[in-house]
């Protein structure tokens, strides 16, 4: 489920939280909780106004955030209930663990995309056996039962429109997020390269634009350094050595497009 609220596009509460963390990251070791909590709640409020489906997931995470923020505002010598304290710490640890798991899978998904793109350039033939085979094979295997076949039929008969997240390479506008994902892997591999070579495979100006935006985004996160001798010169791109595992690389306003 993809949410479009104000300027943000996000996939559920963990993704929203990760995006806010990235946005409020002063540097890699400092994130402001208060800002994040305020903004997170503002998004929820707006989602409610827009009549978007604010699922229980959003609210559970909001509850934890509110408690953490309230706790941070307590004076250091304030009396606290030990049970409540422990419960809150458990909630916090659970939320952190979920954030880290979510980030880990987002990260490895980028590598899987890259691998699939590489493998995708090896194209197999799909036309099957082209000679008339006289004797039908004795034991065909249908890898589904009646229920399975019904599910497949229901999905197929619902039509191709039922798949909003399949877009066609040649027809759709290029995705900046996809360009970010791809550049991260390529720049990490090549270390130093030029913008021209990064976009050598692009066939339309709009694709080059997507890569340019992606490059700016990567520069903003400190993943790359970009320089240019003069205004007509080649744009040089250098990998700063920040790992692909860095939190800041994972989410952006271009995500989930």
């Amino acid at each position: 489920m993809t949410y479009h609220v104000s300027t943000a596009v996000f996939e559920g509460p963990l993704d929203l939280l990760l995006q806010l963390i990235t946005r409020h990251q002063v540097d890699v070791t400092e994130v402001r909780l208060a800002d994040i909590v305020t903004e997170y709640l503002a998004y929820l409020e707006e989602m409610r106004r827009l009549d978007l489906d604010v699922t229980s997931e959003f609210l559970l995470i909001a509850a934890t955030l509110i408690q953490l923020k309230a706790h941070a505002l307590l004076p250091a010598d304030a009396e606290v209930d030990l049970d409540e304290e422990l419960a809150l710490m458990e909630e916090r640890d659970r939320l952190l663990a979920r954030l880290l798991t979510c980030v880990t899978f987002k990260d490895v998904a980028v590598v899987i995309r890259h691998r699939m793109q590489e493998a995708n350039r090896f194209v197999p033939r799909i036309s099957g056996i082209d000679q008339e085979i006289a004797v039908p094979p004795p034991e065909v295997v249908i890898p589904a039962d009646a229920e399975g076949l019904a599910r497949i039929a229901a999905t197929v008969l619902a039509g191709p429109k039922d798949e909003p997240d399949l877009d066609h390479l040649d027809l759709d506008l290029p995705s900046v997020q996809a360009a970010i994902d791809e550049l991260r892997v390529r720049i990490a591999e090549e270390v130093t390269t030029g913008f021209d070579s990064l976009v050598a495979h692009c066939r339309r100006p709009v694709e080059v634009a997507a890569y340019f935006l992606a490059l700016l985004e990567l520069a903003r996160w400190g993943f790359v350094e970009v320089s240019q001798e003069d205004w007509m010169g080649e744009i040089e791109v250098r990998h700063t050595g920040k790992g692909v595992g860095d939190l800041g690389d994972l989410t952006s306003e271009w995500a989930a497009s």
Partner: protein
Amino acid sequence: MSPLAALEAILFVTEAPVPVGELAEVLEVMPDEVERLIDELNSNLEARGSGLVARATAGGWRLYSRPEAYPYLERFSSSATARRLSSAALEVLAVVAYRQPVSRSQIAEIRGVDSDSALRSLLRLGLIEEAGRLSLPGNPAVYRTTPLFLEKLGIGSLDELPPLADHVPPAEVVGALEETFRPGVAEGA
């Protein structure tokens, strides 16, 4: 990559014969040159004792397995790999099962892609069969499932196919928690 290698790759992946004019465009050479390349490809294939050959049919070119491979392909067709339906074939089978009798172009329209090779597989495997022809230009064939299909699926008749309505994905159920938490959220914001 040489134009010869590119030509071979195109004639390999294509599902339908490709006219010389189209090959010339894609390879960015003159049509005469395409004909020369096809000749060269065929002598190369011959020289390396390949099991493949480029042949002109229905106004275009395409790679085929050599006729001499027939006994091997026949044996291969009963191997575990060839007997298992691909996901494309499974989809076409599902469409034929619920929309029979249905024509090739109706299937293509439903799936949004051409389904020729999947249809061929299903016919070859005996899961579907021709059920007559439409009185339209070209007299296209329509297809239906076979008794083998019922047997493989373990049902007695088409009436026993599960109704489609049961498989529309359920609407998301939002937990009662939402109501519980909503006032808290509004206050906090």
